[in-house]
């Protein structure tokens, strides 16, 4: 950085050419207003409330020298070099690279003529979204605090829930044009050090990759099997979930500008859990958990079961039901497989349309679309009512899973299963299941086997897998001090 203010300002104007929101204000101060200074900031990032020049001058006159008119650049330099008490915290930057970075993060810089350092002041940030209830994970009972797009706030909310020095948070910048701040946290002493080392090793590969917009970018960069349909990390927008998973030895990762918290590793049974499992009474939460397991089964295999039973194993259908199905299938031009593929495709199309459209129109599209297409498809003889029931039930089952990425994965898997069912019947479904199981048993999430409490068997964690035992057995408590 140059000592000359003019040179510095020229450099700024050159670098930030055509950046309309860069605001440079020049000031004069001291005896006869002969000394020059300038404040620089992005008006879109930093607020306009505080005049830093004025506050610096006031600090100087109050604490060090008498009347404000006597201030010289030398005094300012001495004051800040000696860490004088100032109303505004400021950092001194002598390198352009550092100063640029701070400017772009929304700080204001004060440049004083004759001093080769910039004073960078913490400024109030732009307005962010207030903390509100998370939309993707609503609960009936329990905390309603959701994350926002502000990393500091999110970490703060987590720290509020885990008030211990064992809670560690480390931050780094991804680089690139976005230069996003990334933070990850864990509970020291609870997290498995080997897993943490592996996680950090993989994070190293993300450093300098740049242009991280959302947490999911990191997921793809560090996951074990990017081509697997099964998600290997769990996402949440709830700080209570993040805190609880850290208590269970997980690592959480947050990205500036995104509200999703990534929980690593995300194991199969974690993905089927919801925070409400622990806020409801034990019987109720087990009932809901089993409902979810059944939903998982339905979401994967109901259409393929229908195909295989209606084309290969008709004898399995009770007579009265069979006659009803035969009635409804008569006059449908397609086989069960084609019919199922058409209807599942329609359903996915409607769902996608419902999500992408503005919310007000979206819900109308999904409701009306489903009714019209369902009803019209039956009347036009494209699909049978039983097929509509099967498809609708599959969709509902996949929606009832707490993790959206898991439910998409299951909807993907159902297509090959349907094809297998139409080729080989029940045997085909069996083959399909076999391959899904084979895949799941070999899958890992940052080195941890995907089906962990069951394969490999971990009796201690199993208490919270297929069933949730009573809370006293689950809560981790520090050991009471041993009395001598």
């Amino acid at each position, binding site marked *: 950085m140059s000592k000359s203010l003019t040179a510095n300002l020229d450099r700024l104007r050159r670098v930030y050419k055509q950046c309309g929101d860069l605001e440079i204000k020049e000031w004069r101060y001291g005896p006869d207003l002969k000394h020059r200074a300038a404040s620089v900031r992005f008006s879109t990032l930093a607020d306009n409330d505080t005049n830093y020049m004025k506050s610096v001058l006031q600090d100087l006159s109050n604490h060090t020298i008498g009347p404000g008119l006597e201030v010289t650049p030398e005094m300012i330099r001495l004051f800040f070099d000696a860490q004088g008490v100032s109303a505004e915290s400021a950092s001194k930057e002598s390198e352009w690279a550092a100063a640029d970075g701070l400017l772009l993060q929304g700080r204001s810089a004060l440049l004083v003529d004759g001093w080769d350092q910039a004073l960078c002041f913490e400024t109030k940030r732009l307005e962010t979204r207030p903390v509100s209830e998370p939309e993707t994970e609503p609960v009936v009972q329990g905390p309603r605090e959701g994350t926002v797009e502000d990393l500091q706030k999110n970490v703060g909310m987590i720290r509020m829930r885990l008030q211990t020095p064992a809670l560690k948070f480390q931050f780094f910048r991804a680089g690139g044009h976005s230069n996003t701040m990334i933070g990850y946290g864990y509970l020291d002493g609870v997290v498995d050090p080997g897993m943490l080392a592996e996680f950090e090793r993989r994070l190293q590969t993300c450093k300098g990759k740049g242009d991280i917009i959302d947490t999911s970018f990191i997921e793809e960069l560090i996951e074990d099997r990017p081509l697997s349909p099964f998600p290997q990390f769990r996402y949440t927008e709830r700080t209570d979930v993040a805190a609880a998973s850290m208590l269970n030895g997980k690592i959480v990762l947050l990205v500036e500008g995104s509200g999703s918290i990534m929980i690593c590793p995300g194991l199969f049974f974690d993905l089927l859990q919801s925070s409400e499992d622990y806020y409801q009474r034990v019987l109720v939460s087990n009932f809901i958990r089993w409902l979810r397991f059944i939903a998982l089964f339905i979401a994967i295999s109901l259409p393929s079961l229908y195909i295989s039973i209606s*084309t290969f194993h008709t004898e399995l259908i009770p007579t009265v039901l069979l006659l009803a199905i*035969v009635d409804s*299938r008569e006059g449908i031009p397609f086989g069960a497989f084609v019919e199922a593929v058409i209807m599942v495709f329609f359903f996915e199309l409607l769902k996608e349309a419902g999500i992408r459209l503005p919310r007000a129109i979206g819900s109308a599209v999904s409701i009306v679309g489903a009714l019209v297409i369902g009803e019209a498809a039956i009347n036009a003889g494209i699909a049978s009512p039983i097929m509509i029931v099967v498809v609708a039930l599959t969709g509902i089952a996949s929606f009832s899973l707490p993790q959206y990425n898991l439910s998409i994965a299951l909807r993907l898997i159902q297509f090959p299963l349907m094809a297998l069912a139409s080729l080989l019947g029940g045997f085909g479904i069996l083959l399909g299941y076999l391959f899904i199981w084979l895949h799941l048993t070999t899958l890992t999430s940052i080195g941890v086997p995907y089906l962990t409490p069951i394969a490999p068997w971990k009796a201690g964690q199993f208490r919270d897998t297929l069933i949730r035992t009573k809370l006293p057995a689950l809560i981790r408590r520090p050991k009471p001090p041993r009395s001598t």
Partner: protein
Amino acid sequence: MRLRFATMVRLVLTATLLGSLLTGCGDRAELPEKGFVMGLALDEAPQGGIGLTVQIYKPSQSIVGRGKPSQSYINIETDDESVIEAVRDITLHLGRKAQWSHMRIILVGESLARKHSVVRLLDFLYRDHEPRLTTHLLVTKGAASHYLDTVPYIENSVSQQYYLSEKSSHQMTGKSVSANLLQLALQSRSPSAVALIPYLYERESLQKPAPTVAGAAVLVDGRMKEIIPSKLLEGVLLLANGYKSGIVEVPCSADPTGETMLQEDAVEVLSTKTAMTVRPAGDHLDLNFRVKAVTALSELACGLALTPKGGSGKLRLRIQKKMEQSMSESMDWLLQKRLDVVGAGNRLFERHTKLWREWKSGWPDRFARSAYEVHADVTILTSGTNVGKPVDKRTGES
């Protein structure tokens, strides 16, 4: 990693190909390609072959069952030298593959059942994988195919109606038996080789023939020998430990020639259990039947109040007497017809195998010489009302 993925893909492909070889695609057929057999009737064909009538479900062609067609089934008749050939001929007429898994009922004409062994006739149904061994069967009075032409009352097809009437008639009235393919095979292949199959006939009701399932056909060595009338069947079932539930009518007076209209108490039998003991005594058998029955009062027409002192005890004795009487009548009939429906031969085979081997050849005659005793032990569970008095005491007071 990449290598493992490639290996996986190869594995999947090989397994899929092998899998398709294993199963073949013979079973694969969409629902509209199949004709669902609801009922089967077997008769004698004029030229000495087997006449086969198949009732096939006809789906409502209109969309989503809006307005059913008048008839939801069709009957197809074929005849050939064997059942399987006749079965294959169905496709000639229907164009769809016959699916046997949901067959409700098998009707066998009386004349055919008297001439040929029913088990042998139905060999195809025992052997093929589609028909269920739990399919029920009936013997019909006259030609069996005629009964498939009857228009059903409520059900979709008359086969379903026969199936339901067979079941409920056995379970609720005790005037019929219930038999499926498995039971028929087990009974026919038991040492005494006697099987009971319910009997279907037409009865005039409101000037219209109404199909009725009552009584039973007795098959000896698979062939039909005799028909047990429904009046006697209650006693037979009591003897054979096959009585589920039914009504026992108890006359007010002991005089058998007296008026019966409103002169009978009636009890509903809720459950029975019969223990039979078989004891060889010289050249014949001593049979001893003990029935334990739990009953509930249905009608108290004789005007007798149930008091702890005597009313209920007397009624109990009357019920027991009536049950013993009906069992004796049935047993006499069975002995006279030389039909071991009660399974005495089977019991003898189990307990005295050596003796059974000696007696086996002349078994019906030896059975006919048996002596027997019947005992009934009746419990009245409930009178249906709190006090157990007749509702109207004036009429029918004895």
